[in-house]
């Protein structure tokens, strides 16, 4: 049913004047999606207390944005909040959860652990340095742990992205507007390059080598191929 409805805007376009209709249909759909983001109740560490519990609490109240319907089953959730460190044992599970979610699905990485490994960056033998190594991330919310206000910043950014970026006719555009949350004139690529330059200038990490040297990413990939191929 959902798939049939997604074709509506494509069908509409074939009629004279249909593109206007299709655009407005998209606009309505995107607004609805943006305002009805149900999180997946999944937290691994301290960030979960702040991100999923405190934000639902009376002082912050995630329900104002229509996001209080935390679903326990990934099938019914719209976005996943990666709250806390992801370790190598957990990686396949996170990937599986992502694969189980129904399109359109969004991911918000909250806290330094989920973004880059944070305090566990060095000398930890299990940590994954950034959850974006396993699943695509839409919004990064920095902090250790971020304040609930920061979570709302992330949620509103995600809403803005969905309202403006994604179209039913061209799904996947939303991958780009990650930069929507960045200041004008700076792209994500710029930041990556700058980070790389800084890290390599200090001769701390050879970024390319460090990424390639992780044999376990292949393991996750194989595991995913084996278990989640048919989704």
């Amino acid at each position, binding site marked *: *049913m959902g798939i049939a409805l997604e074709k509506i805007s494509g069908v509409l376009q074939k009629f004279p004047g249909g593109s206007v209709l299709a655009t407005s249909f998209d606009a309505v*759909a995107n607004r*609805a999606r943006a*305002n009805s983001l149900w999180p997946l109740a999944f937290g691994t560490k301290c960030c979960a207390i702040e991100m999923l519990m405190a934000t639902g609490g009376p002082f912050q109240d995630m329900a104002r944005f229509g996001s209080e319907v935390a679903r326990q*089953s990934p099938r*019914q959730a719209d976005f996943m909040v990666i709250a806390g460190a992801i370790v190598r044992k957990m990686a396949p599970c996170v990937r599986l959860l992502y694969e189980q979610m129904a399109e359109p699905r969004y991911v918000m990485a909250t806290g330094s652990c989920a973004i880059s490994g944070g305090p566990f960056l060095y000398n930890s033998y299990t940590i994954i340095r950034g959850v974006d190594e396993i699943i695509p991330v839409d919004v990064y919310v920095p902090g250790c742990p971020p304040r609930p206000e920061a979570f709302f910043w992330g949620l509103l950014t995600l809403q803005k992205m969905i309202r403006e970026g994604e179209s039913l006719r061209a799904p996947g555009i939303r991958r780009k507007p990650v930069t929507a949350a960045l200041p004008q004139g700076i792209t994500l690529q710029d930041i990556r390059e700058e980070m790389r330059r800084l890290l390599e200038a200090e001769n701390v990490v050879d970024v390319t080598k460090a990424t390639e040297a992780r044999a376990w990413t292949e393991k996750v990939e194989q595991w995913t191929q084996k278990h989640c191929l*048919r989704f």
Partner: protein
Amino acid sequence: MSGSLLWMTTSAAQASPWAVKTLTDRAAEALPSSPWLTLAYLAGSLAALGALVSFLGMSLIYVERKLAAHFQCRLGPMRVGPHGLLQTVADSIKLLLKEDIVPERADRAMHLLAPFLSMSATVLALAVLPYSPSLQIADVNIGALYITAVGGLGVMGTLLAGWSSNNKWSLIGAMRAAAQIISYEVSATLALLVVVLFAGTLSLSGIVQSQAAGWWIWRAPGVGIVAFTIYLIASTAETNRTPFDIPEGESELTAGFHTEYSGLRFSFFFLAEFINVFVVSAMAATLFLGGWMPFRVGGLDGLNAVMGLLPPGGWFLLKTCGVVFLLMWSRWTFPRLRVDQLMRLEWKFLLPVGFVNLAAAALLVLWNLYFFP
């Protein structure tokens, strides 16, 4: 008993200002003159039913979320529309557009069928509910029995959903649902029979009209309130809501029988739950609180005239909302029961009490020991 029964039927036929005219009656009347009008009636009532279902579902979900929020010192939805009024609209559009997943190893046909079965069972019940004297789709003469039968059908959808998902948690949830709904059906029916005994009819509008001299909750001394309580508990259990939400039991079974459902099909279960809440509340109002009948006390004509100022439809809505509030109140207050405690409550407590209550009611009817016989 036959005396009182006779009084009922005669009073309803002769002097009642509440002449019931259902949509089916109107359609049947129009049939000889113009079949097109009949068709228009039918199409109109179908459309109205669809609109009613979606409106009811959405508004109840909105009310539930707002109510829960205010119970919990929160605000609830605020951003979409004024005070979040459009929140459920946004949710429905999103759910419509969401990907529809059927797990690879699920029983595909049954998996697709289950939500519709669950939904249709609850929608069927809406057809016989008396909303007001002029607004009722069909007045089946076994209305009360029909509601019970159709309500029992809903468990088929749940069971099918749990079985076809090929997920152990879903299956546990479905089994719990089946055990629970079938058990509590018995108590609900026993409570319903008390009213049927007093009213002397199975037709729902007949039951409403029998309360012209007073609602059965107080007119049947003692047994009325006991039956009402039993009915409320049993019907909360039938709708799978806290404290009887063990089939979904979020903290135990992730999401129970609908763990594997996404998008539209999940929303059907969601909607069915809320329509069910409405149906059982409307039934409780119809059976015990006089349905669309204003608050009347036999003999007090002044009071009855004042009460009659509010149209019957308004009374129905008011009472139903009251019962819905009661159900939501208990949902956001109580913890969840365990499955064997749930069964113990039904078989060791509600059922014996229900039987005793029914016997007492029979005696009261036999000896005319109730108000305004």
